[in-house]
């Protein structure tokens, strides 16, 4: 069991459209990610990196191939099955933060815990703890509109953390931030990774990818490179 990868993609293909309009976004991808890794996925636009991210995040289903999560085939799960998998094992961080507007930082972080069915007091406690971990203690009752971009992304990371996931999936987490904030966010993700959380991140910036331990590059829906990050920050 010890050598079972946390995430294993086997011959994954994702095809959009049919006939003439057919687009093969992913075309036979094999990828294994072990517990505790920090993987950066790079590639030009249309290379399939976002599609791969969506499939790993169980937001999308592969057209062909098998996806094993902790050794269990989850590629056949229906909508609700995938929702439960996301709820219990995955945390998401997006480029556009995707916080609920006019909702306090604390309530945003509580969101996944509501669907986990935790009672109110426990939710608040966990959400506070998560905000503390990302360095936002004292900002619990701020609206997203009252927070800077970097702070909003921290709230989003806290939200991903609150559900105590096995993996955090970050899709261009620094895309909307200036370089100073970007590096702070990356340091935070790196620290969380050191504390044991597996991180999978899509980015198109070399210096951001340098925070990861492993670099995966997609080109035309296929894996072009898969190598450890040598000059790790």
């Amino acid at each position, binding site marked *: 069991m010890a050598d079972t990868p946390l995430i294993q993609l086997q011959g994954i293909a994702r095809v959009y459209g049919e006939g003439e309009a057919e687009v093969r976004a992913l075309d036979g991808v094999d990828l294994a990610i072990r517990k505790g890794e920090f993987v950066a996925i790079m590639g030009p636009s249309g290379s399939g990196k976002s599609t791969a991210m*969506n499939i790993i*995040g169980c*937001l*999308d289903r592969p057209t062909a191939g098998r996806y094993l999560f902790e050794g269990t085939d989850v590629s056949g799960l229906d*909508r*609700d099955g995938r*929702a*439960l998998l*996301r*709820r*219990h094992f995955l945390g*998401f961080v*997006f480029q556009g933060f*995707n*916080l*609920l507007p*006019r909702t306090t930082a604390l309530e945003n972080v509580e*969101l*996944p815990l*509501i*669907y*986990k*069915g935790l009672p109110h007091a426990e939710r608040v406690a966990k959400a506070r703890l998560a905000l503390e971990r990302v360095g936002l203690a004292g900002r619990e009752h701020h609206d997203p509109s009252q927070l800077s971009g970097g702070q909003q992304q921290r709230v989003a990371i806290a*939200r991903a953390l609150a*559900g105590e996931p096995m993996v955090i999936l970050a899709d261009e987490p620094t895309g909307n931030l200036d370089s100073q904030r970007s590096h702070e966010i990356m340091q935070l993700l790196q620290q969380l990774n050191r504390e044991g959380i597996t991180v999978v991140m899509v980015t198109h910036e070399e210096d951001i990818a340098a925070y990861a331990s492993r670099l995966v590059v997609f080109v035309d829906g296929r894996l072009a490179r898969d190598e450890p990050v040598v000059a790790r920050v």
Partner: protein
Amino acid sequence: MLWETVRLAIIAIIRNKLRSFLTVLGVVIGVAAVIAMVTVGQGSSAQVSANVASLGTNVLIVRPGKRMMGPGTRDTAPAFTLRDVEALQDLPVTAAVAPTSSTSSTVVFGNANVTTSITGTSAAYITVSNWVLDDGRAFTPAEERQGAAVCILGETVREKLFGSAEALGQTVRIKAISCEVVGLLQPKGAGSFGQDQDDLLLMPIRTVQRRLAGNQDVSGMSIALQDGVSSARGISEITALMRERRRIEPGAEDNFSVTDMKEIASMLTSINTVLAGLLSSVAAVSLLVGGIGIMNIMLVSVTERTREIGIRLAVGATAGQVLTQFLVEAIMLSVLGGVVGIALGLGLAYVASRYMVIPFTPDPMVVVLAFGFSALVGVVFGFFPARRAARLDPIEALRHQ
């Protein structure tokens, strides 16, 4: 979890106060209209039933002219005479016959004056029409024969002329007559047409004929039948006698009418019921329109909150949970509309009842039904938008601007 969903719905509603208000307005109006209609309808039915009781049992009204369908319709047929009254009195089916001769006049006492309907009649009228003497006495046979200047006041007239002062034994002036108040009637309240039944003054019929009207006419007769005599039998015997006395050829139409007051009352009740039903169905249509309004706004809301739905799906909400959230919100909206509508409808019904002088009798069953129906509107019209929300693709939803 459900409480959490309800809380979310409340927050969403409060965030868009104006929009929520406009959304539920249709339901508010629909529910308010139904509640007001039904409550007023029931109140006026109760009033009609009370009037049936106040008319007395087995009372027939005889009037000259063809069949009347309400007060004030009359044609040029000759009036009755006191001889007709005596002849009807001698019929075995009649218990009491009270002649009436009505006019309208101003009644003056001191500085106070009131214009009221003056009914010349006999003491029998009081019992036949189911009046009760509150104080004093009825006319004596002697007063009736002589056409004495005595009168009995209805409550409205007494109140306007005397207020809290003693009326009995006082003398009021009606045109040239100085008239002693010998009796006071207990109030009856509003009649089937909403008129004030207590706005009247009774005098012996001869007094009215000689000193106010200046003729010998009897413009109507109120007849109480003997116990055990059916209205139908009473009507046929009275009609036969009156045709003979008025020398109507066989086959010719009656030039008088005999009306069973209870028949009129029951007709009024059914008119009431039909009218309330009709107005309620119009109100129900408004509820339907209100429901469509809720559906419309919920669809807009789903589109507006696509990204929110995407976030919820991403953190692990199932389709069922998203569906429940939007459904609960629609139900909360329509129930809110229902509650406001119930309050508004009862308020309107109360004001209308006061204005129409009918009893205000809110029916808890109707309130519960209106509440349930408004919740149903939320379920029915909220389902489609909620299902649309639940079926959103999380990736598309997250990308939505």
